[in-house]
């Protein structure tokens, strides 16, 4: 472990940049997102105050979401109406979450963060496309014009959307966690769309990625006016994660990521435990 007090600006910036680059690269490669490991990386290894770490992480989340959106859009999977409607829930949740960060003690936030890390590692292990069942279209989803189609291997596939209120509710929760912890909470967004609303997995993941940037922007304003976003720290984090994740998306197509996903999941669980322990010990 390094002590930030002994590092000069150049060394500190370079190390944080390198760490963020690796986090972004592995996050994109495994589909687990780089944001979740950034805050533990900064707080545990670089002894950064939790609030500065959350601020820098949130900024990098916006960068990765926006930076990779261009690649996803070309594939024609994302559903702009579903995304925009659910963004009402995620942005309101993000505002609530961002306000909560100032009210809740950092140690409690660290505990919530630890639980969130373990949950996202768990969900990534068991998330697989569910079996499709034909059901009559849902009335609310039809009214909101959410039913759509996307290019599949076997041609254009139509899909219907269900349980809109339940999805909306989970999205509010995802937004709150995003604002509270400075993460994208992509895993929870995918759960809301794929599991609750029965939206095809590919559409869920790409629409989620589209939504992450807007959700994060909703808490970023609050973070900025609170002084959580320090440019000298956010600079290497944002540049590192952005470059790393763009590299990760390039490599993604060519590599077998199964073993890597497992290793990265274990790393996430370990970081989650460390956050939990330090949080319970009140060391934040």
């Amino acid at each position, binding site marked *: 472990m390094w002590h*930030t007090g002994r590092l*000069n600006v*150049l060394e500190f910036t370079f190390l944080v940049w390198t760490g963020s680059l690796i986090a972004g690269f592995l996050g994109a490669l495994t589909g687990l997102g780089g944001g979740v490991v950034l805050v533990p990386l900064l707080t545990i290894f670089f002894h950064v105050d939790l609030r500065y770490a959350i601020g820098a992480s949130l900024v990098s989340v916006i960068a990765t979401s926006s930076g990779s959106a261009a690649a996803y*859009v070309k594939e024609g999977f994302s559903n702009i109406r579903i995304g925009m*409607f659910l963004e009402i829930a995620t*942005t309101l949740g993000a505002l609530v979450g961002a306000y909560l960060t*100032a009210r809740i003690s950092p140690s409690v936030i660290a505990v919530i963060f630890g639980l969130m890390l373990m949950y996202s590692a768990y969900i990534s292990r068991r998330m697989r496309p569910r079996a499709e069942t034909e059901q009559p279209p849902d009335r609310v989803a039809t009214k909101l014009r959410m039913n759509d189609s996307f290019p599949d291997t076997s041609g254009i596939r139509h899909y219907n959307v269900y349980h809109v209120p339940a999805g909306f509710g989970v999205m509010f929760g995802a937004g709150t966690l995003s604002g509270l912890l400075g993460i994208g909470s992509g895993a929870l967004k995918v759960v809301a769309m794929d599991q609750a609303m029965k939206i095809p997995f590919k559409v869920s993941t790409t629409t989620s990625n589209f939504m992450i940037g807007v959700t994060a922007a909703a808490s970023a304003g*609050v973070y*900025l006016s609170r002084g959580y976003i*320090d440019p000298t720290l956010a600079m290497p984090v944002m540049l590192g994660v952005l470059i790393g994740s763009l590299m990760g998306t390039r490599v993604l197509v060519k590599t077998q990521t199964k073993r890597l996903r497992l290793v990265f999941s274990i790393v996430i669980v370990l970081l989650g435990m460390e956050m939990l322990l330090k949080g319970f010990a009140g060391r934040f």
Partner: protein
Amino acid sequence: MTVNHGTGPQERRTQNWYDERMENVIAQLLRGGVLAAGLVVIGGAVPYLGFHPRAHVDYRTFHGEPAQLKTVHGIVSAAFSGDTQAIMQLGLLLLIATPIVRVAFSVFAFAVEGDRLYVFFTLIVLGVLLYSLFGSFLIV
């Protein structure tokens, strides 16, 4: 051409065509925003690192940022007076603004489609985002 609110195959196809075009413009917009933000951040980072590379930094304790790095107005005016930290912060501000511009564009795009319901939804999202950036200091 007006797109009505039905979901027949013809309407659906038209909706898809508009949506695809909208998504393409949005993708360009996001890419451009991130690129611009990254360049401005680097533009501030180079002189910042060059001027005092041997200085020490400490992020262990939270002090909050000075006023000039906390508000849109403060950041812009400090950046234009040459403050290197404010230039980096201006880049980050551009990054935060990118999804907001994206949502603002969607209001326009849904309006062109004649989709009033989604213009309304998008305006709510835009309202929340603008409130966060410009009005949140009221309740801090």
